[in-house]
């Protein structure tokens, strides 16, 4: 260094010696931090990817038709079923044990059986072992013996029986579907008319008292409606009976691996296939058919079989209502906090409280929602508008609206915090520029600040939606149920029934995995449902992200 003068050198020769530079130090080069931070990222990613892969692997595999082996054990027992799990004993070399889904619950009284590997003396894959998914009693495994049409055997060899099954199953299924429609939709419509007439009496009674002219009129109308309904019911009954009769003509005689015979009516069969003689195309067809059933059908057998369509529907409707509710409130609150309120102690306390709100256990929100929305607001609405329904609650119980509002409350902090961040990221020069043009505060917010902050607000919205769609605990209290007979949106006036209970995928997972009687059989469905829920959240997010991109483009076409 040339800046040190001669004088300095004389008086303090030591100072000329260069300060030791720590070039050799690992930390001065920053290498360890790269590894440390990178390692942190890798570990986080591994955990997330691991979870996703697990869910994806099990969820995708659930519906793949596996082979159907027949085991003979040392003590002469015959067991046939799909192997669902394999375990190894720790100390023994002799292998382990298998969990075999034996089905045929109506005959054997059990769904599963453990078999020791060491006790197996024979394992075969019988080509005509059929897997039959039934509408009742779960899966049936067995061999086709005969196909009976109107009491007469029309085929007696397995191939012939299966051929007949394929020939008739479609029309039988169609008739079953028609019957189901008659039972739910048509009967529902008649009931709806009848219920309306009954409520009219009660309403007239509440308004004008018993015996008043309007009451008399309503009673007469009800009697007429009742008469008409009885006729309608008779009509529907006749149609159903006719369908039942024609379906009852087709029966498949099956034999289990143990030699028991069982008549399986064709109307009770959802799907039947010879698991061991399927080629790849056949398996793929069944796999896809099962996925479609899973996505568009209603659940059967205490939710452990069939589809989850009502749960998909409920989840999406609830999440959308929640988003609609939380958006305006969250944005307005954040706007006040960031743009209008003067910074001070009170605002700081409010802000801290909002952040803390995000840490309140979600079940507490559920309890609050139940107490406030269902029992207070809902009950008041019932008193005012649905008095004739009482004592049956209309809004005074859990429902999709209250669930959505409870979750809106739960996700409000997320939206407020994200919106505030987005607002504070708008440069002050924009605000000043707008004010200098003579814009009022609201004009500035509306025309400059909100458009500029909108992508950030949408990000908060996406976070809130992901959080809300995956939440289960509060929903158990405010409206999610195991099985909802009716969807929150249907064809009967007023079309949107926000007071109805609904099914939710998150709750469905809990119900399948931990509340089901046959939880072993439901376990694979847990993974599929989880996969579906993740998929739906992902889809909703994709929609929101696309919306965000479009907004960005709309408000400014250049860099952001």
């Amino acid at each position, binding site marked *: 260094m040339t800046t040190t003068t001669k004088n300095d050198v004389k008086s303090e020769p030591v100072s000329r010696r260069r300060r030791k530079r720590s070039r050799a130090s690992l930390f001065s080069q920053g290498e360890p931090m790269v590894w440390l931070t990178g390692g942190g990222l890798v570990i986080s990613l591994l955990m997330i990817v691991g979870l996703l892969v697990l869910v994806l692997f099990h969820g995708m595999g659930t519906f793949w038709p596996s082979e159907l082996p027949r085991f003979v054990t040392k003590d002469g027992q015959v067991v046939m079923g799909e192997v669902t799990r394999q375990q190894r004993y720790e100390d023994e070399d002799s292998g382990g044990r298998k969990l075999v889904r034996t089905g045929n619950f109506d005959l054997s009284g059990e769904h599963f059986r453990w078999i020791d590997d060491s006790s197996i003396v024979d394992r075969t894959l019988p080509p005509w072992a059929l897997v039959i998914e039934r509408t009742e009693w779960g899966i049936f495994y067995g061999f086709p013996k005969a196909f009976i049409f109107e009491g007469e055997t029309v085929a007696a060899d397995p191939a012939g029986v299966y051929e007949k099954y394929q020939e008739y199953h479609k029309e039988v299924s169609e008739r079953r579907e028609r019957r189901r429609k008659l039972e739910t939709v048509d009967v529902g419509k008649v009931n709806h008319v009848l219920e309306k007439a009954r409520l009219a009496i009660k309403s007239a009674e509440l308004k004008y008292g018993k015996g008043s002219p309007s009451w008399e009129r309503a009673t007469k109308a009800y009697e007429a409606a009742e008469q008409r309904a009885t006729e309608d019911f008779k009509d529907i009954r006749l149609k159903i009976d006719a369908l039942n009769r024609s379906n009852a003509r087709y029966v498949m005689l099956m034999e289990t691996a143990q030699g028991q015979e069982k008549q399986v009516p064709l109307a009770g069969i959802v799907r039947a296939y010879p698991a061991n003689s399927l080629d790849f195309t056949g398996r793929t067809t069944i796999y896809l058919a099962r996925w479609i059933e899973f996505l568009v059908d209603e659940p059967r057998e205490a939710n452990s079989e069939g589809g989850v369509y009502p749960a998909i529907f409920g989840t999406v409707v609830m999440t959308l209502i929640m988003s609609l509710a939380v958006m305006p409130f969250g944005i307005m609150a954040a706007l006040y906090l960031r743009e209008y309120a*003067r*910074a001070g102690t009170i605002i700081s306390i409010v802000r801290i409280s909002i952040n803390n709100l995000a840490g309140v256990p979600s079940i507490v929100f559920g309890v609050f929602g139940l107490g406030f929305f269902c029992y207070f607001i809902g009950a008041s609405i019932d008193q005012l508008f649905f008095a004739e329904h009482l004592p049956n609650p209309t809004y005074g119980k859990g429902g999709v609206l209250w669930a959505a509002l409870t979750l809106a409350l739960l996700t409000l902090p997320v939206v407020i915090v994200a919106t505030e961040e987005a607002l504070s990221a708008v*440069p002050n*020069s*924009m*605000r*000043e*520029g*707008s*004010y*200098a*043009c*003579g*814009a*009022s505060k609201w*004009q500035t917010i509306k*025309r*400059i600040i909100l*458009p*500029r902050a909108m992508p950030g607000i949408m990000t908060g919205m996406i976070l809130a939606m992901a959080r809300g769609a995956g939440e289960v605990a509060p929903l158990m209290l405010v409206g999610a149920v195991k099985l909802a007979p009716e969807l929150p949106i249907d064809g009967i006036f007023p079309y949107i029934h926000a007071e109805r209970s609904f099914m939710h995928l998150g709750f469905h997972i809990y119900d399948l995995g931990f509340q089901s009687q046959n939880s072993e059989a439901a376990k694979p469905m847990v993974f599929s449902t989880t996969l579906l829920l993740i998929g739906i959240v992902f889809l909703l997010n994709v929609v929101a992200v696309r919306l965000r991109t479009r907004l960005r483009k709309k*408000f*400014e*076409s*250049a*860099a*952001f």
Partner: protein
Amino acid sequence: MAEQLVDSVKEGTGDAHMSRLALIAEGQTFPTDVHDELKREEPILEIRDFNLHYGEKQALFDVEMKISKGLVTALIGPSGCGKSTLLRSVNRINDLLPTVRIKGDILLNGESMYDPGVDVIELRKRMGMVFQKPNPFPMSIYENVVYPLRIDGERNKDILDEVCETSLKGAALWEEMKDRLHESALGLSGGQQQRLCIARAIAAEPEVLLMDEPCSALDPIATNKIEDLIEQLKGDYSILIVTHNMQQAARTSDYTAFMYLGHLIEYGPTDRIFVRPHLRDTMDYVTGRFG
């Protein structure tokens, strides 16, 4: 000793070099040295006994100043001397900061601006302001220019188109922009953005144009264009410009005010301030001996 010095400085005798500024730094106050030429001009703005505090800190001390109509007035002075604060007080944009306290008044065409009954929003519409950093809004060029009309609720497309064209022409930007009016303003270069901000400021046909170091973020060519523009706008608008660039003040302005630590030191015709100022302090500053 100190009092003697103060007296000698006030009388302009003795060794006045730097000492007036040094005394101001110690808390003394002096009346502004206003040149006689200003008395002949018709003022559009009258700043009266203006004091401004940011919280505990006083930023402006008893500023007395008349801004002449239809001319360019430059505010010069070292960093932190309060030029920008004074400029921002003129359209009351300082009001937005919660800690600001104000004593004194500013008159626009003889009407008080700090009267409690004054509609600040109406007031700001009578002033255009151009900021140090170009701040076009995140919308199209067209929408940027007509923004002041939009907030007035103007919906007539013909009027909007006409104002857009005249304003862009006024800001010497029409030829460059006429084919890309509906592109985002954020895609323009810095100089174009600043001229766009000027177009936006004159779209509302203000009485006063306030410019807060409009060229400090621009390259020399863009700076030249803005200076030419100021030259053209003079006459139609009364311009108050804050600048760090002494040559710019000398080139563009008719009157120049020299400020120091919140005090207005000397105020007179630009050619006088830069060539024969009354005070040594001003001379030292404009010749670059400090600041």
